[in-house]
Structure formats: C-alpha cells, structure tokens
C-alpha cells in the first residue's frame, strides 16, 4: 500500500503546500468541533458500529492518479521506448523484436496509467468509529490498517498543486510507532478531509500524549 500511496503523492510533493487551517487557528478545539458538527453529520462518518461499511475515496482521485501516473510512468515509457529503438537501430538483427517490445511496453504503461488507478480506487476504503480508524488498500498486496485514534500524534493535511486542481486533499496520520508510523488516506474531497481531520483530532485528542 505504501508504495502505491507514495507513488501518488510524490509527484505533487515537490511543491508541497501544507493546507492552512480553514478554520481560524486560534479557536479552541471543542469550539471547532462544535462548529463542524452539523456539516460533519452530513458526511457519512460512521460512529460506534465496527460493522459499518467502508467509505470510498472521492472518485476524482482516479483522474488525479491517472495524471500523476502519466507523468511518472510516461517519462519511463518514453525513455524505454527510445532506448529500445536506438538499441534496435544499432543492432539490426533485433529489429523484429521491436514489434513485440513496443506494444508490450505500451500495453503495460497503458494499464498502469489508465486502468490501475480505477482498480486501486476500488481497493481503497476507510471507516472511522468512535475509537479506531481503519483503512484498507492495495491490489496485489492488500493492507488493512487499524489505528486507535488515541495514538495519533499529529495529522497532516496535504494538498499538492495537482490535488488542488482536482479539489482533493490527503490526510496523513502520524503515530509514535516505528515502521508503520504513518497512515495515509489519499484522495479525500477537500472539505471532507478537513472535517475528517477535525473529527479524528477531537476523538483522539484527549489521550494523545
């Protein structure tokens, strides 16, 4: 999962702009929660029941991933196509192989760029009950992560330039853990990301040491 999410957040990471608080920063935590509660009810944030369904990401994230993949894999595709062609021109005996290599490379990159984001989108889900955030993701290697909200150290809301274009945000939750210390929820609708963040902070806040 981590490789996937990194892959999708990195291209925008170059000019990471930390999302400034939408609310007035000086507000008290409980006030802020109170102010967001009505909107928060509008969003299907599950409460109490662990059996509740997973929330999907915002569908626009598919397009976002396609764009980032196009940038990422597109460069690799062009380089490898050029490499294969130059190699074939230098060594005419492998020229026939080019007719296999090109479509194969195109097909692979096409799958990675166009189809994979949709499947990945379907694999992603998150749900929050009153104590635990659960995320699941991954196609080949599937990962489910349960994060007791009381263990959240801090929450980053990240909006890269591309994410802003699509009106999306990523939530990055940090715990004091070691190799699983960061949990990412990508592709949230910007407003919902803020609401979710506030909800998570409010729930976890009382114990986070």
């Amino acid at each position, binding site marked *: 999962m981590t490789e996937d999410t990194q892959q999708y957040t990195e291209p925008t990471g170059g000019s990471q702009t930390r999302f400034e608080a939408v609310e007035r920063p000086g507000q008290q935590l409980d006030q802020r929660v109170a102010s967001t509660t009505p909107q928060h009810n509008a969003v299907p944030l599950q409460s109490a029941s*662990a059996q509740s369904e997973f929330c999907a990401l915002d569908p626009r994230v598919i397009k976002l991933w396609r764009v980032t993949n196009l940038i990422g894999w597109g460069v690799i595709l062009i380089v490898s196509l050029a490499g294969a062609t130059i190699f074939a021109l230098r060594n005419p005996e492998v020229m026939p192989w080019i007719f296999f290599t090109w479509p194969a490379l195109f097909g692979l990159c096409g799958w990675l760029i166009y189809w994979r984001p949709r499947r990945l989108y379907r694999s992603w889900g998150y749900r929050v009950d009153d*104590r*635990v955030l*659960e995320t699941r993701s*991954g196609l*080949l*290697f*599937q*990962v*489910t*992560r*349960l*994060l*007791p*909200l*009381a*263990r959240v150290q801090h929450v980053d809301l990240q909006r890269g330039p591309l994410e802003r274009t699509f009106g999306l945000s990523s939530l990055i939750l940090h*715990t*004091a*853990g*070691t*190799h*699983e*210390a960061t*949990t990412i929820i990508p592709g949230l609708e910007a407003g919902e990301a803020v609401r979710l963040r506030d909800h998570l902070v409010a729930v976890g806040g009382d*114990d986070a*040491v």
Partner: protein
Amino acid sequence: MQYEALPKPHGASDTPANIPATAEDQEGMPRVSATEQIIVSSPKQNADPRSKHRANGAIILEGRLHPATLAFAIYHSIRRLIIPVIPLFFFGNRIVTAVLLSLLIGASVVRAVVRYLTFSYRIEAGELITRQGILERTERHIPLERVQEIRIEQGVLHRLFGVVDASVETASGQGVEAQLSVLSRREAERLRQAVSNKALVQDAEGRSNLAADASAAERKRLHRLHLRDLVLAGLTSNHLVSAFVLMGTLWALVDDILPRDYYERTARAAHDQASSILAQGTQTALIVAGSGLLLLFLVSLLFSVIGSIVLFYGFTLSQSGENLHRSYGLLTRRVSSLPRRRIQVLEIKEGMLRRLLHLAALRADTAGNAAADQEEKKEGRDVLLPIVPRRELDALLPVIFTDLEPGPIVWTRVSKLAVVRDTIQGGLVCMIATGGMYWYNHDLFGLWPLILLPLVCGVSVLRYYNLGYMFRERYLYTRRGWLSRSTHIVPVRNAQTVTLRQSPVSRRLGLATLIVDTAGQSYTGGGPMISNLPLEEAQSLASTLAHRAAAMHYQW
C-alpha cells in the same frame, strides 16, 4: 535530606567479587559503599565542591563536567586524526603535517576548554537543564518524566581518571538527548539517582531534596550472570557470524601489512599442497578440508565466547522501585537505568541450541531507541538479559510487566495452511533458482535446487509448530521462527497501529498476517507479528486489539 546511597552503578559495592578491583578504581574517585550516606544538603560533604544544593531553592542538583574532559578531547581528536595522518607523515612534508596536526588538535582542545568552561547542568522543577556555549548559547530542558533511559559508561581510559560518560535518552527518536561526558563517578551517580527518583523530587515542597523512601532506594537484584553463563552464552549465540566478520576485519588489517606478492606465493603454495593432497586420494583431501573447517569453527567459537565475556562480564540486572538497572562489561563498564513502564515490547529470543538447553535471551525496546543502529547492539544495549534459563525468565516477566496476567501460556495455533503457504513460497524460490541454474548450465546438474523442495516442506512444518499467539486482556503474546524462535510480549496499551497484510498467495488461501506496531522496535527484531492467521480470525483479533488499545491510556 539524607538518602541512602544506592549501590554503585558499577556493581562495585553489591558485587565485590564480580568486579575486578583495579588500581585505577582506587586512584580515581573514592567508592561509595552501599551503607555510606551522602548528605546532599551540605555541600562540604560532596566530593565535588562545584556541585551544590540549595535547601530552599528548586534546584535539586547542579554540576559541571569533570576537568578530565580536556584529556578526553585530546585523546578523541588524536584517535580521529591518526589514520589520515600516518600516510601524510610518511609520504608528505613532515613539517606541514606536524603544523597541521597541532592546529587540528589545538582547535579541538580549544573547543573542549570552551565546553568544559561553559557546560553546566542542573535539575530544577522536574527538569534536567543543560547549558553550554559562549556565542551561541544552548539551554536544553528535558522534563524528567520524559527521560527514557539513563546510561553510564566507563571505558578503560575513563577508569584511569575515575570518570564516566553519562547520556540521557528521551523518546525523541534521535537517540541521546543529553550527553554529559565526562563526569566524575560520584556526580554521575547522583545525577542518575536524581533522574530515577524524579517522583520523589517532585513531591518535595519547599525543601526539595533527594530524600528517597526506603522502598525506592532498596535495590533488589533480579538476575546475575556468572562466567559459566557467559561462556554458555558465547557458545550458543549466533555470534558465529560476527566472529567471522571480526576475522574478516583482522584479515583486512593484515592484508595492508603483507607484501603484495604474498597472495600469489600463498596461492601457488596452496595449489601445490592441494594437488599433492589430492594425489594421495580423495579421502585425505576430505579429511584435510574437514579439519580446516573444524578449526575455523572452533576459532569462531572461541571468538564468540571471548566477545560474550568481554561485553557482558559481571552482568547484573537489578530493580529499585520503578527502575531496572543493568550493569555489565569487562573493559568498558556500562550501566543503564530505565523505568520499567517505558518498555514497549519484550522479546524472548531462543536459538536452536538455546532451546535444547532451556535458555533464552531477553530483549526490550523503549520508545527512545527508534534510531538505534548496529553500533548500539555491539554495546549490548538491546539485551535486557543476554542469557537466562527459561524457568527463571518466567519468574522475571511479572517483575518487568507488573500487570501481566498470571497463568501459563497456551498458544493458539494459526491455520494449518501455513505449511502450504511457506512451501509455496520456498518452492517458488527453488524453482527460480533451478530455472537460473538450468538456463546457465543445460545439464541435469542444474536441477539440484529441486532436491531442496522436501527440505522446504519440512522446515515449513517445523515453522508452523512454532507459530502461535495468545491474546489476553492486557497482553498479546506472539511466537514465531524455528531456527531462531522469538516470542514477543506486548502490552495492548502500547499498540500504535495494527496492520493486516495479505500477499496474493495468502489471499488465495484465505490467510492474513497481523502486525502490531509499537514505538521503538529496533532491538526486538521487528516486533510482534502473527502470520498465517485465518482472515476472519485476524480481522476480529485486529479489531479487538485496536479498540482495546484505544480505550487504554498510553504511557511513554
């Protein structure tokens, strides 16, 4: 205002037979016997006149570095410079080298003088405060509640001066937060006590002091290793590998000294020898090769035993109040004190040989050692007990985790499909190896990795029987590994995240791997993990774990 001096961290007072009473010790700071009382409130009784105690102020303890700091600065700079300087001295301009060398050493001496003159520390209002610098002053406040571990280290050179290195570690993940090098032994001991007994320090109203009640000062020895144990530890450890590495390093050193054509001559001689041996028949060749291997094995065993003795000589684990103290070392004495509630995970490590002898090693992780490196393992920081009989260990665990549920460990087995999954994974590796070999060498001989398949299957079965978990109200136990089995004990309250992983193979089989992440897992081999759980069982276990952890208060 008085307090019972705890036994010296070096174990000198409570284990007199254990510690070689070296001449250096006597020349240095006087030893404090267990019964001697230090009157903290009267400065004239203190060995170090610079440290003072204000009976009415909030300052509990105040001090400076030991003057020997300068000597150590010179020593360290020489040690750092010696390697690059030697070739310069022989092949370069000697005068330039000498000037350069004296400049560099002079600079570090100046730095050390500045450090010595400006560095001060004190404990005030529940904080350890260090100050240093002239132009750029740094003042660092470390809340005593946040101190994870305090370590005191005394090398051979330190003993000459009767001083120690003290380091204070917090959970910042960057390792040592305050490095006090060097302090006099007495100062370091007072610092350690003041930090360890912080609760008492905070209790004091008006007249703050180090008055410790008897229960906190009483130090109980939990376990002590004798020479026999250390030899056993060396023999049964997997230090064999590190012994080989050590021999490799020695070889590299020798390599620099030997003339260049040495190898050619040796190789030629070896070739001649080998052909003459082969000429005598295969049997002789086998015997020669076998005895060579045996020799290598014995030498590495010897290295391993020596390493174990040098590192862990006189190992004592003791407890006073909330704190666990370890002291060990033949040449470099190391003492570390850590509050037991800081321990995030425990690992009981049992290699194959140790299992046969009912022995185990106990490792512990605190949140402070997130940035641990290989070097720290060489210093033995990772082990709470290098070797301990299993039965005694079971008695020790409730001392470390006080709210550990009593009762025997009953392992819940994972799915039997574990064998299938391990075999498939091992088989895939075998297949790839076979494919590679066959492609390289179109020969039946290239198929030899296939004979490993039954072996892989056998190992999978053995691994299955060692896999298990037990989940109680407050603690999770996991066990894995066959060649080297490790049992993790993690308090549920310390779980930071719970992760379920499914690879394509395990998904097909309906299995999942459960991983519990905690703060600090560098010493305990990746922390608790249960693989090959049936998916539903894994999901419900993960959910219960996470919810229970969320309901508990996490203590750093």
